[in-house]
């Protein structure tokens, strides 16, 4: 395969990771909402943990973006 084509192909494959991270982020907020609607009184106190979970899930998706950018512009 042409090296340039292989790079772009790899960057496209790396974009799958962004979609998978979307599942993770959606799961974080969905589960939070599910719990928050059952016990709205406790919801406000857990907002910090919500964003920690969001940050952890999001970071892995952002890493796939970094991989794609490195493949296109650096490698």
């Amino acid at each position, binding site marked *: 395969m042409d090296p340039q084509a292989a790079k772009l192909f790899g960057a496209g494959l790396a974009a799958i990771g962004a979609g998978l991270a979307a599942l993770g982020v959606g799961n974080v907020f969905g589960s939070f909402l599910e719990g928050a609607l059952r016990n709205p009184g406790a919801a406000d106190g857990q907002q910090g943990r919500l964003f920690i979970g969001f940050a952890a899930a999001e*970071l892995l998706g952002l890493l796939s973006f970094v991989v794609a950018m490195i493949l296109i512009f650096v490698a």
Partner: protein
Amino acid sequence: MAEAGKVDPMHQFTIEPMFGTDQWQIAGYQIPFTNSALWMGIATLALLVFVWGGMKRQLVPGRWQMAVESMTGFVDGMLASNIGPAGKKYVPYIFSLFMFILFANVLGLMPLALVPGLHPFTFTSHFSATGVLAILSFSIVLVVGFWKHGFHFFSLFVPHGTPLPMIPLIFCIELVSFLVRPFSLGLRLFVAMMAGHVLLEVLSGFVISGLNAGVGIGSVVSLLSFTLMIGICALEILVAGVQAYVFALLTSIYLNDAENLH
């Protein structure tokens, strides 16, 4: 990568010397005053004006003082819930960090390019800027941890109640997860801001090439892209706030580890 006639989405991140300072040198290294430094200065200035406007200490606060007080109260509450009473002394640092990143992110999204010759620059979309902020936070964690607990700080890497045969393995895992913190902290902010700006630029490229393609198909493509762009802009403002909040929140959680071990 960009061919002629296409919008290059990475061009907006170029760091350029400003005001003819590209020949400034310190010890043989070229240290010009760049657009990145300019926008850091603008963010600092905006932050100073914002806080100064709320320092009148009126008994019945006006709107401006209320805005500043709600921000400090927000950071204060975050530290109190994450660190406890010992978190009070970190309020100035976390407040400056949070507001600096927030102002930088929001200023970079402002549609200032409508004024000809003016290009807003988001310096938080560069790892050199966010990495330094992350290293600063990490150094404070290390200094506080070793100052307060001495070599007992290493008990952070062995949680309570770990079975004896598991200790070497857990120690290595915890050590790696501790050492990777400054990278993940800086990387998250920089990549989130960069990805958002690339996305906006790619969509605006669609609008322009749609208009160039003619009236029929062009109006459909351009209109759809433009509508999507408005939505993404709103999302980016949200992301700017959330990323500043996450940076401050994670810093306060790491400070909690240093302050209270676990």
